[in-house]
């Protein structure tokens, strides 16, 4: 059985760029799977989706959708996919219901069928009462729902969601998560990009963590969480001069039971606070030693917390950076 998505050594370098936006990415998504591409802005997630949806021409490697090459078999690929982009690209010259019916017409869905389907989807997504409006007056959440309805009009096999809940209010986000799960339950393969850890953890069967155009790891959320050595993390925020920082890092590394210490840059906006992430089997037991080390190094404890394994911890562990 062919995979829903197969990506081999994919590369993309935009003209006039000195680096690859996507730098040799390979992964496979099985039919019926929800697959997440997780990473900060600029990691190459949107470019990867662009190649898979025929909007970006790859400069190397290959990708297929249901066995059809995204470069040489574009018609067959486009027939099987649907895309919900980050920003609204709704056709503002059309009315709400027409956006759906025309989309289906482009895909050759017969008139009666596309009209029934449009009404059903508008009702299902809570847009039924405003079907004859133009989309100018739609809120971000409504535009998002309409784009999802549009994506489903031609019954695609693979749905691409690019940062689906970015800029959505919590209620719309929850609604969308439920929809995504329901769609997947009905057999739809979904590839989504996100920089929201909660979202990835909750929705995805597997997650590929991307940074600088490469995939760092690709596994199930629970396996990814096991990557953190020892299991949990002590996060220590201090106020310290440059000299004290160096001394503190050494002292922290010397504490018994510590498997790794990281200095995290850019976590705080005030210049004189620095964060340390101390990985250990029992991070909670190190609180006293960490405070002592801080005082001994001539720094002041600003904040201190013990964190359990989450995807956010995994990401920071892998990249040394916060996501946002």
């Amino acid at each position, binding site marked *: *059985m062919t995979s829903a998505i197969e990506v081999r050594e994919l590369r993309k370098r935009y003209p006039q760029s000195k680096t690859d936006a996507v730098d040799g990415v390979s992964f496979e998504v099985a039919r019926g799977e929800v697959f997440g591409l997780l990473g900060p802005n600029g990691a190459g997630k949107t470019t990867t989706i662009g190649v898979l949806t025929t909007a*970006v021409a790859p400069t190397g490697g290959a990708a297929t959708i249901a066995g059809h090459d995204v470069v040489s078999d574009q018609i067959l690929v486009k027939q099987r996919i649907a*895309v919900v982009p980050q920003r609204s*690209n709704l056709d*503002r*010259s*059309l009315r709400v219901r027409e956006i759906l019916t025309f989309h289906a017409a482009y895909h*050759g869905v017969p008139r009666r069928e596309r009209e029934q389907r449009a009404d059903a989807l508008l009702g299902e997504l809570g847009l039924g009462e405003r079907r004859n409006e133009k989309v100018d007056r739609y809120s971000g959440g409504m535009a998002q729902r309409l784009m999802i309805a549009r994506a489903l009009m031609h019954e695609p*096999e693979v749905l691409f969601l690019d940062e689906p809940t970015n800029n959505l209010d919590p209620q719309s986000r929850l609604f969308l998560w439920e929809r995504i799960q329901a769609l997947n339950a009905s*057999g739809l393969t979904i590839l989504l990009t996100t920089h929201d850890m909660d979202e990835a953890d909750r929705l995805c069967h597997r997650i590929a963590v991307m940074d600088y155009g490469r995939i760092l790891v690709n596994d199930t959320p629970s396996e990814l969480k096991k990557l953190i050595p020892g299991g949990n993390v002590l996060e220590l925020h201090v106020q310290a001069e440059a000299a004290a920082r160096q001394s503190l890092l050494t002292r922290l590394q010397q504490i018994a039971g510590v498997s790794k210490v990281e200095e995290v840059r850019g976590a705080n906006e005030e210049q004189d606070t620095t964060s340390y992430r101390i990985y250990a089997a029992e991070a909670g037991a190190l609180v006293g030693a960490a405070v002592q080390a801080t005082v001994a190094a001539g720094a002041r404890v600003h904040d201190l917390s013990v964190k359990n394994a989450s995807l956010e911890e995994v990401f920071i562990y892998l990249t040394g950076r916060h996501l946002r």
Partner: protein
Amino acid sequence: MSSPMPAAIAVKERHEASQTSLAMTAFFAILVRDLVVTRREIVSFLLQAMMQPLFFLFIFGKVLPGIGLAAGGFAGLLLPGIVSLSGMLAAIQGVTLPLVLDLGFAREIDDRLLAPLPVWMVAAEKVLFGTFRGAFASACIFPMAVLILGSSYSVRTDRMGMLILMILLNGLVGAAIGMLIGTLVQPQFISLMFTLIFTPLIFTGCAYYPWTALGHIRWFQVLTLLNPLTYCSEGLRYAMVPPTRLGEVPTLDIRIVLAALIVGFAACFIAGTRTFHKRVVS
């Protein structure tokens, strides 16, 4: 592994349609979309396309001959030029202006690009649609001329086939030029480009004067041959202006006109679909 695919059961009947028929279905659905959108704004489209020719016909075809500043036969020579100019401007604008929205910040064309048809056909649809707009604008000049000029001109009826062909070619060339402008020029410069492109296009296109009469200003006569509108205007004069007692009214050779327009259209269309491709696929 080549075990039978369970997903094959779910594969819809529509998947068995050939790629050609998929692409053609998408092409015509997109064309219908454009027609539906145009029908909604028919009044503004007509005003946009008709205001200029209306006043031109009135001032140059009625007022100037009326006060003796232009010869009586001028209206008959002017009308084909107005037909070609109006059609060409409507065709160019019919492609360029929607492209500004389509390729702008919101990228409203994305949904059409994701339809199961090759990218060049999305461009071709725009050109065909622009041709319709151009031909429609050209056709609207005739009833307007009856209203304004009354009986002070006549159109020969023995070259109807050529007249229709010329109106269509005129629209095709205009639409292909519109595709080039719309894909080459950044949205913020579109109105500037209209001034920079339209003004010379309008005044060097032999719309207001016959090409053969330019013999005394040879350099200008040669210069006008660079303007596609010259061939359209002359071709329409060939198809519309009735012979006088002295014989056929001289025009640019119709074979040259047809050859120039076909070559010009092909060149602009190929270049335009290429620049379109560059704009929509990064």
